[in-house]
């Protein structure tokens, strides 16, 4: 009898991205007057082609909206998930109603996170997206699951999660809309100390702009640079007074013992190169003296013969 106990591995509980009970979804027409004004619909205006297409055949693809039952009769009571440009185009051509898929959210409590994310994407509110993503992460959802549930790209999810690096003072300002998304993104890359400095700047000036973030970043770089022992970096060989030729590197053919010479074979090659170089010096000296090369001393002739043997 085996001592092995067979067990079925416990399947990790999948995070609940949507409520346990299915949401009520209906497809119908909604009056355009019940939808948010164009000004509240973030994003570009509809293209001329879209307007003309809707003028010709109407809206063929329903928009998606979410509504709480008690707000159905309230003008602007619907939140748009998808179809901002279709709504604007429909208004431009004078339609009164538009086909829609309506998701009915519970009257009480927060909207499901997946819906919140889709809504906030429409509204261009990264801070709210971050909060919703954080809740999903807390439930154990990974980036892929969040992406599948919300349609948000994984890269965007990661970008939103980087806001978590903001110190509390900047995070609250970001969530309150007191600093722009761009400034928040840049600030999140800085150290805690630098971000604390930016919080002080925000308190003093009442606003924070990219220039402030850049200044904090540059100050940090300067301080870090000053702390480095850079004397050798610029001193030897002297960077500014180095003659032009010496600013170049000796090519490999020159007889420079390199670290590769620590290998015996390579050392032999360098020694041979060195011998060639020395013979070239002898030749130059011999020629400068006007002497015949064939009459060089015996050691030079023997060295030349050795090199000829090597070359063979």
């Amino acid at each position, binding site marked *: 009898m085996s001592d092995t106990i067979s067990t079925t591995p416990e399947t990790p509980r999948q995070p609940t991205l949507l409520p346990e009970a299915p949401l009520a979804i209906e497809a119908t027409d909604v009056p355009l007057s019940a939808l948010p004004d164009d000004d509240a619909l973030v994003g570009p205006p509809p293209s001329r082609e879209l307007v003309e297409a809707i003028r010709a055949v109407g809206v063929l693809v329903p928009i998606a909206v979410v509504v709480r039952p008690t707000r159905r009769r309230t003008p602007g009571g619907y939140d748009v998930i998808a179809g901002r440009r279709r709504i604007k185009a429909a208004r431009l051509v004078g339609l009164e109603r538009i086909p829609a898929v309506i998701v009915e959210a519970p009257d009480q409590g927060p909207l499901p996170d997946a819906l919140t994310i889709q809504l906030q994407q429409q509204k261009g509110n990264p801070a709210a997206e971050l909060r919703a993503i954080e809740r999903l992460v807390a439930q154990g959802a990974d980036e892929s699951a969040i992406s599948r549930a919300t349609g948000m790209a994984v890269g965007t999810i990661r970008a939103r999660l980087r806001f978590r690096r903001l110190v509390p003072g900047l995070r609250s300002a970001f969530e309150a809309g007191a600093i722009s998304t761009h400034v928040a993104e840049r600030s999140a890359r800085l150290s805690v100390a630098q971000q604390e400095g930016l919080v002080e700047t925000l308190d003093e000036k009442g606003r924070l702009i990219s220039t402030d973030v850049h200044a904090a970043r540059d100050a940090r*770089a300067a301080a870090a640079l000053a702390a480095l022992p850079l004397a050798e970096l610029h001193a030897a060989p002297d960077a500014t007074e180095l003659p032009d030729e010496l600013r170049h*590197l000796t*090519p490999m053919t020159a007889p*420079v013992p390199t670290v590769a010479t620590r290998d015996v074979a390579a050392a032999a090659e360098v020694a041979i190169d060195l011998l060639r170089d020395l013979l070239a010096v002898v030749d130059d000296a011999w020629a400068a003296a006007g002497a015949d090369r064939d009459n060089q001393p015996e050691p030079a002739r023997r060295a030349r013969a050795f090199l000829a043997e090597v070359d063979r």
Partner: protein
Amino acid sequence: MSVGAAAVRRGCGVRQQGGAYAETGLSSNGLPLEAFLIDPPIRVDAEAIGLTAVGVKLMARADGSATDVWDIVGTEHYHNVADFLEEVRRFGMSRRLPATLDFGRLGPGSRHVVLHARGLLANWRDLAPERAQECPRVAANRSLIVRGATQETADRYCPVPPTHELPFPEHQTMCCGLWWDDVAGGAPAEGRADRLTSRSMPSFTYAARRIAPDVARDYRLAIVASLPITRIAVIRADDGRHEPVVTAAAKSALPVALEDA
């Protein structure tokens, strides 16, 4: 005679049309590569400095004498520090600069400051017992004397790091020679007790060592070399898109050369 860097396939690929490249050229009267190594390597906090793995950063010196280009050499293309340095030794340096760089800040005194993620081995002492070679800077200093320089001249242009005044076993800091004793990815030589390894790069092969292979390494990003920028090469593009790059590069006080890919 001096020339620019050679247009060969490098660890990071071939030069791209329309690209601008900082070069350290070769010259028969030039200095050995070792003269430009930073020994011991200087550890750097990339985030604090504002360096990223992609692109370069211009850094003005504290005394305002020059502006240098700081550049992290990626380990995906040059896994070992020696991979990059041996390439530079053979073909000169060629590193791409962004077309949007403020070239006007570069001049003859500008250096290309090379950083590598494996530049500093924090636990270098763990590998020290197997090392036996002298410091490359010492060898380079001596090579200048072999070439006819006086000791004074050799010390001026290729000084021996003060930390290396003691014989190797008594070094107090990591020696840059470790970059050639700690090369991964090479083909080990059969039957060699000295852990000789032959490391192949796209355009060359070099000999190095892989000592103490069982020792865990604790690498840190560090400055490994400070190379003079001898010219900027712009690579000619079939569609002429190199022209604005040449114009931008000409704002520097460095020679600009239009080269073929």
